[in-house]
């Protein structure tokens, strides 16, 4: 009897031992914009520690690397500029004209054109990063924020917070060719890797709308529900999709959770505890780790993508907003 108990116990434990904490070999750095500190924190992926803090313009929010990761672009919203930073030295090389109050942007696959949402002016500004000139300004809805570009580079999306729309912009004519309604306060948009779907998160609506790109018809709406958390606090903001087309990780703002959505069923399958006001996120290049910014708690939670468990939370500056990854040397 005792032997049976011991053997059974051993089998049960062996079957349940977690693989979390396994080594990841991604390396590189994650750069995080700290909205209220006017700084960028650089996190070493191997040590999961902040190695550098770089002073930048006022209210840094949108943050992304050039396609070869040699240049960092940063929306310094209250400086009304997109700053171009050398990531090796941390020096600001120059500012790009961006229009007023740039909040988010997206770099076109041609690595040359930045599409910038100007929150206060209801405009999407297109900037040529080589000539450093504004080549177009497109009127969009009130308080534009979310920006996405299709993988083929033909369509750019701007979502407007107050108009509650996704605006479809033709990158050749630089004109809006369609508008689609979404729920209240859209925050972030992403195309799927195959370009067939567009996903838009809505903060107040508490949903993600999935559109078929060809017909621009809504094909799914994702809702979230967490035991013990009031629905009003579940506010989807930033999200990222895995390249294997299995999962989408969604930051749920003041719910302090990240949802894991099944790409196939469009259903949330798990929730991961993170810090206060989960906002945006970035994968490492190998997609083994996901870094989620927690605005109110001033830290970044690192999630092991395979086990879908948080492994560490790292203190950064005040109100971390966006995050982006670059490979190590």
């Amino acid at each position, binding site marked *: 009897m005792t032997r049976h*108990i011991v053997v059974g116990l051993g089998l049960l*434990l062996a079957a349940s*031992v977690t693989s979390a904490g396994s080594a990841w070999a991604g390396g590189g750095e994650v750069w995080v914009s700290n909205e209220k500190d006017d700084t960028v924190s650089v996190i070493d992926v191997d040590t999961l520690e902040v190695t550098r803090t770089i002073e930048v313009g006022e209210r840094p929010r949108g943050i992304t690397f050039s396609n070869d990761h040699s240049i960092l672009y940063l929306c310094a919203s209250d400086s009304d500029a997109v700053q171009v930073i050398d990531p090796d030295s941390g020096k600001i090389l120059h500012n790009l004209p961006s229009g007023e109050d740039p909040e988010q942007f997206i770099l076109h696959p041609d690595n040359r054109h930045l599409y910038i949402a100007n929150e206060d002016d209801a405009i999407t500004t297109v900037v040529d990063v080589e000539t450093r000139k504004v080549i177009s300004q497109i009127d969009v809805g009130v308080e534009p924020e979310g920006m996405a570009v299709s993988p083929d580079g033909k369509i750019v999306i701007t979502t407007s917070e107050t108009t509650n729309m996704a605006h479809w912009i033709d990158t050749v004519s630089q004109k809006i060719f369609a508008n689609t309604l979404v729920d209240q306060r859209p925050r972030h948009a992403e195309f799927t890797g195959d370009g067939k779907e567009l996903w838009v998160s809505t903060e107040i609506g508490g949903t993600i709308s999935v559109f078929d790109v060809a017909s621009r018809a809504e094909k799914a709406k994702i809702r979230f529900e967490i035991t013990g958390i009031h629905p009003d606090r579940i506010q989807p903001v930033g999200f990222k999709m895995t390249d294997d087309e299995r999962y989408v990780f969604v930051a749920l703002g003041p719910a*302090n959770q990240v949802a894991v959505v099944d790409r196939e069923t469009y259903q949330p399958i798990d929730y991961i*505890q993170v810090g206060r006001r989960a906002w945006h996120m970035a994968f490492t290049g190998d997609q083994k780790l996901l870094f989620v910014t927690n605005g109110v708690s001033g830290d970044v939670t690192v999630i092991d993508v395979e086990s879908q468990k948080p492994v560490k939370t790292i203190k950064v500056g005040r109100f971390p907003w966006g995050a982006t990854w670059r490979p190590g040397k």
Partner: protein
Amino acid sequence: MNAYLTSLIGITRRESLRFLSQKGRFFSALVRPLLWLVIFAAGFRAALGLSIEPPYQTYITYEIYIVPGLCGMIQLFNGMQSSFSLVYDREMGSMRLLLTSPLPRWWLLFSKLLAGTVISIIQVYVFLAIAALFDIRFSLAGYVAAFPALLLSGLMLGAFGLLISSRIKQLENFAGVMNFVIFPMFFLSTALYPLWKMAEASPLLRDLCAYSPLTHAVELIRFALYTQFNPDAFVWLVALTALFMAGAVAGYDPERSAILRRAG
């Protein structure tokens, strides 16, 4: 075979047989913490996600927080139940048989204590295995590292039970012990809430929690499950075990008992 070892094996065997024959005791020992985990913790799932304290490296949900506390709870109740059986043995007369052994009283008590601790550890690992099915898992090293921590915490809580049982004359008094010792000890510890949360309610409650014996047991187990060592909790546990054991040996001293009987 060495007489000491024979008596240890004999007592352990008797405790094991008693435990295995009392299926109800085994299941109630498991159901109690599982109720806390599955029902109580579910309601508070999001309650504790907002502070990071060692050994945790990130925000955790409440059910993850209370698992080490529930391990302590299993050991606390088992320690009490084990000493409760001593009171029962004394009333039923089977203790007299045990005490006819020529071996020193402290060794018999220690054997009893160790046997009870081993049983509590088996219960804890079964509980951890069931918790793993609810997706609350630790690394393999964590499960291994928890063993010595559970051994020490089990000894301390068992010795505490022995000390209490040595002062109890009748089974009926045990209900009072549950109300006035076990439950306050359980609720005034870090088993269910971290100290920082207690401090928000009252600094006095926080201090009471900080010095509770169960707190040290729970914290040693908690750190061990994350393969970390908590030296403060360790020192406290060693000291408390020695203190409670000394008290229990004195309490079960035959000369003292005889004097008490004569006085009574």
